[in-house]
């Protein structure tokens, strides 16, 4: 489903990603973790071409991201993404946030889009907020709306860029619950997160990044059992001890 081949990326002289390679097969849940500044957010933004890269290639659903001929908007329409800061459209109601992509990008009818939106809002437990605006919702609620917005496009896979990092602790679970449910339904997911509980529960594999490189790429039990790299061991001991 997602095939990342030797990706390298520079910001000017500064190398942010170095020869990153991995893959996510259909139905797999892969968690990407690592200290801040390790390039994990950049890597996941490369997967749907939001961030350009200079070397290597990424193949999503048999389509090359690096190929300049690729119609990126068309591809992104089917790759859902959830951001750290939600990024709901603040000038649109919750329902409009969920219908705009369906109507303008997928060409669905207003009526159909509306129904789909309400169904998804119900699924994330926010039907009662349909007519409100993003600014009137809590962070956890906003992130669930953002999830619903991505799902409204019927994505073939989902990318998560630190979906719970900007949330108050008591709101983290309401978002994770939806993500766990999604994973259990067989959604292909690539998740940048520090939530090791989530990783243990649903991840098939865990990728550990540091300094723009993938240091460790292992099955979940293996990763939490005995990480091979010293760097990952230190990271784990720090993150799990609190």
């Amino acid at each position: 489903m997602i095939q990342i081949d030797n990706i390298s990326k520079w910001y000017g002289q500064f190398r942010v990603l170095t020869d990153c390679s991995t893959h996510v097969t259909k139905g797999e849940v892969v968690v990407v973790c690592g200290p801040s500044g390790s390039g994990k957010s950049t890597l996941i933004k490369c997967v749907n071409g939001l961030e350009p890269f200079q070397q290597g290639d990424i193949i999503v659903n048999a389509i090359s991201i690096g190929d300049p001929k690729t119609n990126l908007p068309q591809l992104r329409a089917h790759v859902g993404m959830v951001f750290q800061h939600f990024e709901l459209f603040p000038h649109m109601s919750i329902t409009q946030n969920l219908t705009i992509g369906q109507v303008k990008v997928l060409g669905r009818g207003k009526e159909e889009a509306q129904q789909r939106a309400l169904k998804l809002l119900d699924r994330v437990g926010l039907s009662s907020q349909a007519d409100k605006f993003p600014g009137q919702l809590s962070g956890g609620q906003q992130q669930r709306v953002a999830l619903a917005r991505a799902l409204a496009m019927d994505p073939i896979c989902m990318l998560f860029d630190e979906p719970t990092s900007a949330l108050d602790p008591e709101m983290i679970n309401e978002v994770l619950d939806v993500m766990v449910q999604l994973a259990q339904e067989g959604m292909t997911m690539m998740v940048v997160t520090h939530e090791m509980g989530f990783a243990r529960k649903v991840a098939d594999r865990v990728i550990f990044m540091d300094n723009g490189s993938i240091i460790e790429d292992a099955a979940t039990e293996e990763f939490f059992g005995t990480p091979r790299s010293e760097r990952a061991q230190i990271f784990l001991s720090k993150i799990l001890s609190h």
Partner: protein
Amino acid sequence: MSFFAQFDFSVIAPSLPFLWEGLKFTAKLTLIAMAGGIFLGTLLALARLSSIAPLAMAATWYVNLMRSIPLLMVILWFFLIIPLLTGKPMGAETSAIITFTAFEAAYFSEIMRAGIQSVPRGQVFAGQAIGMTYWQTMSYVVLPQAFRNMLPVLLTQTIILFQDTSLVYAIGAKDLLKAAEIAGKNYGRPIEMYVFVALVYFLICFALSRLVKHFQARTAIIR
């Protein structure tokens, strides 16, 4: 004879229909230059922010050029040069409308550029992530927010534009000021006429600035 006894404000009432015609042109010029200026200004702003270097450079040049020449000179030059280029004269009113739209576009583009930059980058990502093209992201996500953020500044610029329209009197276009000048000459009472139109300009600008305050409160995005 007291100071005020020298004035005769009774000449204003009979001049009102004539002044009204002038005001109508002033309003027309303001509205067209505002709408056209904001539209073209938005395109200029998008061009300046675009990653296509020649486009960005051309837009930057245009904006800087317009902003470094006094408006009065642009009005005069355009009015004088167009007949030379096309071989036929252009009416002062048409010339004024084109000049103002082109000139204001430069100022509105700077406002819109700031507006576009005030929208967080994540919003662009969010639009793109659900498959929107560049134009879709701009028209549904970025520009509506940029407009709301900049509305008070856009209206303030429009008030300045409204005042600046009086400069067209230099090429003989019949705006409010020109009408006042003509009426003042007719009655031999220029001072009374200028005082009266100054009051009209003031009242309209004052009303518009109140409107700005009103909009500021109403269109704010809940965050």
